[in-house]
């Protein structure tokens, strides 16, 4: 009897109010809605000149037209292919190289000065050279995406390997681990979170690069369309493409972040 009454309060499910449970998405959505509303009202009331600032409703109307005509899917496809090729190459180069530099002091000393110079300089200064080498088109765009994404991933991978907990290395050695064992079973899994963080940064750089690249060295693609509509002062149309590319970048970033969270499930959550 006493047991029954004592368990009763535990059995009652404590339910938080709706707002509290979905705190994050609600606040985020509200923030976006507020911004759109202010934008719309400001243009409508003449606080700002709608000719230069555009208006959410105008962008929406423009979007309907662009989705129907304007080869929207094709431009997106062109941008996507440049991004995907450049990013895949960046992954293929940066992760192995970053891992190697993480374990090799000599390699690090050798490659660090030019690496850091390239990492900190805006890669876009290389664009004119790339155009001469690779011409206007896919090659240059892939190269510029590659250059944008490769460094953050490589630098983070290297830092992940170097930041390995030496106590884990000692423990592995005590059990007779070979250098390869330590690399594959301690260093690589241990630096996975850092690698993914680099990938997430690389996505941002890569998306930026593909747009900038297309503004200058392309006859098609999202960046090309943005440039064209910008020169024609058609900001409604320009914004449709701008939103498309930021949505793509944002989606990819969120996807990588979800992967990071999965991999980090072995870590203390807070």
């Amino acid at each position, binding site marked *: 009897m006493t047991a029954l009454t004592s368990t009763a309060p535990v059995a009652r499910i404590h339910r938080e109010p709706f707002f509290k449970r979905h705190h994050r998405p609600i606040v985020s959505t509200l923030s976006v809605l507020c911004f759109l509303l202010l934008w719309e009202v400001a243009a409508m009331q003449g606080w700002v000149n709608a000719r230069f600032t555009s208006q959410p409703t105008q962008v929406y109307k423009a979007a309907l037209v662009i989705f129907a005509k304007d080869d929207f899917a094709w431009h997106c496809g062109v941008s996507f292919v440049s991004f995907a090729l450049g990013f895949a190459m960046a992954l293929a180069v940066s992760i192995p190289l970053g891992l190697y530099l993480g374990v090799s002091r000599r390699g690090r000393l050798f490659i660090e000065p030019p690496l850091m110079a390239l990492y900190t300089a805006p890669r876009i200064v290389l664009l004119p050279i790339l155009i001469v080498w690779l011409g206007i088109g896919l090659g240059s765009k892939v190269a510029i995406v590659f250059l944008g994404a490769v460094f953050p991933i490589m630098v983070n991978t290297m830092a992940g390997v170097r930041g390995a907990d030496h106590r884990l290395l*000692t*423990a592995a050695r005590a*059990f*007779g681990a070979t250098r390869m*064992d330590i690399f594959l079973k301690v260093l690589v899994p241990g630096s996975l979170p850092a690698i993914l963080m680099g990938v997430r940064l690389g996505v941002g750089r890569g998306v930026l690069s593909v747009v900038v690249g297309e503004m200058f060295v392309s006859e098609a693609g999202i960046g090309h369309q943005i440039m064209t509509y910008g020169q024609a002062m058609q900001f409604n149309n320009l914004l449709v493409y701008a939103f498309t590319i930021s949505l793509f970048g944002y989606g990819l970033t969120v996807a990588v972040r979800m992967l990071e969270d999965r991999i980090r499930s072995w870590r203390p959550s807070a």
Partner: protein
Amino acid sequence: MSQDVAASGRMEIRDLSITYRKPKSDEIFTAVDRVSLTIEKGSFVTIVGSSGCGKSTLLLAMAGLIPRAAGSITLGGAEVTKPGPDRAMVFQDASLLPWRTVHGNVRFALELQRWKRDDIDERALRYVRMVGLAAFADYHPHQLSGGMRQRVNIARALCVDPDVLLMDEPFGALDAQTREVMCDELLRIWERDKKTAIFVTHAIDEAIFLGDRVVVMGRNPGHVREVIEIDLPRPRTSAMLDSPAFVAYRRQLREYIAADLLALQMVEALV
């Protein structure tokens, strides 16, 4: 042949010295100075001393993880130069791979020693069960208490079936109550097959409670000060902690360690 079996868990340390070069200078620092010690097969030897007496360094040398300046360490007649499957080490906290589960961490040791693939999972699980963590086999280290993590550490060392178990302050990060429970648990496991055990600690009670012999180390440079035989019956129980014999050992050890600290202070006062 029978000679080999008898000698397999016997460790002999002869005139062992270990030196370090201090970072950013050419000064040589002697961590362990001409230590000689014989550890019989199947005995439980504890090493105590204040911090900086070289006790952990000595243990790392037995593990084959650090080079020696002079002298020798032999195990079962063979020279110890690098880590080997005849020794396994239990570390302080935080030596488990955080991305592996309890089971995966025990398995890790078997993988490194190239155990055959088909029974590796089963064997790892058996040792997880032995330390009482069957229900937590799929947990990650951060989800466990400090005591549970050390159980994993012990399981990981035992599963590779070493001749000698080396323990470097394995309970140093635990609270007093958990320590006592873990000491009981460790002895219970050790009594089963009585592997040679070498246990480094700075806790005097722990050293007496666990050991057949207590090696007291002194500092500057690290050396063996005394070796005391602990004549308490096994299995040891926590009731013995208050027995007259235990209290006498405790007082004796305290005096040795205090004398070492005092000698050091006098040296410092002179300098």
